[in-house]
């Protein structure tokens, strides 16, 4: 990789266009984050100032934030989203890796069938299942519950497939040795195999958490109670309430976006590597 970069760097040095290239890419990047910059800047503006293009507010104010936190159930929605996404991600990490490990490292009759069956669920789009899930939720009383939001995503075919790929690369001798030492199968999985696939686990966690945090269609259907809205459903509901107060709506959008952005800025390298890993394996 480094040699490749070095070769390319040599190629670059011969060309004077590198500064121009850098500048163009930088301008493109600025355009990419412009919507986010305006969203953040507007959230600190007063109502009169909203229609001005200035990025730095003349009279920065926290009123919009105070308004959102007091007049809407935003904090509540944030906690709902956080709780559902965390619970669901924990479940996916546990079960997808357990199943992936079992399919990769145990030799038993029926393994191939189970694997193909789980893999085939990747072909089924969520949209096809929402009506049966809704019927199921109605008959079991899961409408307007956290469980109702979370249950469809407690295990995923994608995660199972990803984890299986990684566990297959672990040497069998490692597992055999632990067996001879008298470790239980569960301990071998949780204490020996799992620590060796942490990059894959973190990629899966990031994907799943982000997917849950931004999920809209299913929570919109299964939740009617304002107290149980997740962030996206809550923000969509602003349409009727605060219709044209753009600074208020921008503040809410800002609050919804900032947590993921902060996590990204802290863990950038980790996250990018995870996405590359997942993308290439999947």
């Amino acid at each position, binding site marked *: 990789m480094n040699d490749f970069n070095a070769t390319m760097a040599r190629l670059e040095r011969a060309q004077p266009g*590198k500064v121009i290239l850098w500048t163009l890419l930088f301008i493109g990047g600025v355009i990419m984050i412009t919507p986010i910059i305006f969203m953040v800047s507007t959230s600190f503006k007063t109502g009169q100032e909203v229609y001005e293009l200035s990025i730095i507010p003349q009279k920065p104010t926290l009123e919009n934030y105070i308004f959102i936190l007091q007049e809407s159930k935003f904090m509540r929605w944030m906690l709902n989203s956080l709780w559902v996404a965390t619970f669901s991600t924990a479940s996916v990490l546990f079960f997808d890796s357990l199943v992936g490990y079992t399919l990769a490292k*145990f030799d038993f009759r029926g393994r191939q069938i189970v694997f193909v069956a789980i893999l085939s669920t990747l072909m089924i789009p969520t949209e096809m299942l929402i009506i049966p899930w809704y*019927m199921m939720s109605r008959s079991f009383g899961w409408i307007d519950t956290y469980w109702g939001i979370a249950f469809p995503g407690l295990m995923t075919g994608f995660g199972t497939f990803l984890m299986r790929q990684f566990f297959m690369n672990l040497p069998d001798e490692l597992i055999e040795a632990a067996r001879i030492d008298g470790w239980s*199968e569960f301990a071998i999985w949780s204490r020996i195999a799992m620590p060796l696939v942490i990059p894959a686990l973190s990629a899966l966690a990031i994907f799943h958490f982000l997917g849950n945090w931004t999920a809209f269609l299913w929570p919109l259907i299964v939740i009617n109670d304002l107290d149980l809205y997740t962030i996206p459903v809550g923000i969509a509901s602003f349409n009727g309430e605060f219709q044209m107060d*753009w600074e208020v709506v921008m503040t809410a*959008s800002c609050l919804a976006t900032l947590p993921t952005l902060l996590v990204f800025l802290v863990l950038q390298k980790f996250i990018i590597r995870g996405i590359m890993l997942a993308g290439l394996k999947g």
Partner: protein
Amino acid sequence: MTNFWSKLSIKQKLAITAWFFLAVPLVFYVTIRFYPTFEAFYVSTLKWNLLGVKKAIGLKNYVKIFADEDFWLVLWNTTKYALVGVPISMIIAFVIAYWLNEIKFGHNLIRAMYFIPFLTTAVAMAWVWRWFYQPLPIGYFNILLSWIGIPQQPFLKSVTQGLYSIMAPAVWAGLGFQIVIFIAGIRAIPRSYFEAAEIDGAGRWQILREITLPAMKPTIIFLTVISTIGFLRIFDQVYTMTADSAGGPLNSTKPLVLMIYEFAFDEFKIGRASALTVILFLILLMVSLMQLWLMRKHK
């Protein structure tokens, strides 16, 4: 019990452990994935409003759908999202990835700027874009246009521009993911290929056309399929950006998933909605099978 266990061979013990580990997941996959899949097919043959009596009507839901002019409009809209959105986003992403890969100074910073939109919530950003699309004096896009003397554009309120105005934030949000995957693809090419080409005196364009692009075919196929499926399932942006009349104006932006949502949860035509989900499933299945076919051809 202990006696029974100790009599088993190691292979048998392992098989039992495996099924023990798989027990709960299998219950999940059967009840939350497979059973609902069959139920969707079954319900698609019913006339049912969720509360009343279920009436078996065979394939009539499908007949009604195919006779519905709105369905063909919606199908065409959905196709447009994919047919226009995928090539545009793929080309932009590849160009940026190709050049970004060669930059070392500030690489992480610039990559972050392109990647950040991928982390946003579509529903939250829909508000920002809606605001940008507003007429004068509110909307930034119209303000920018007025500076260079272009008359005000209706954007979301237009039958011709609405769909593309909704597509833009979808492309914008997906670009970062595509760029990261493309860069990974470029870096996975063995560097000896480039060195050999360099020694042979191949120019940049020649290297790109004859080495980089062919070697990246699997990455390109993977991203094309992922993005196509994403655009064919577009919903969040349309639902939130056209909230005054979902899918409007005059259904000109309505995609399949929104039509499914309205049939099922506004009009409670559960059978008809299920039939539509089966149609969506078949369309997505065709796209996935095409990927398998292309990948096989590649090998």
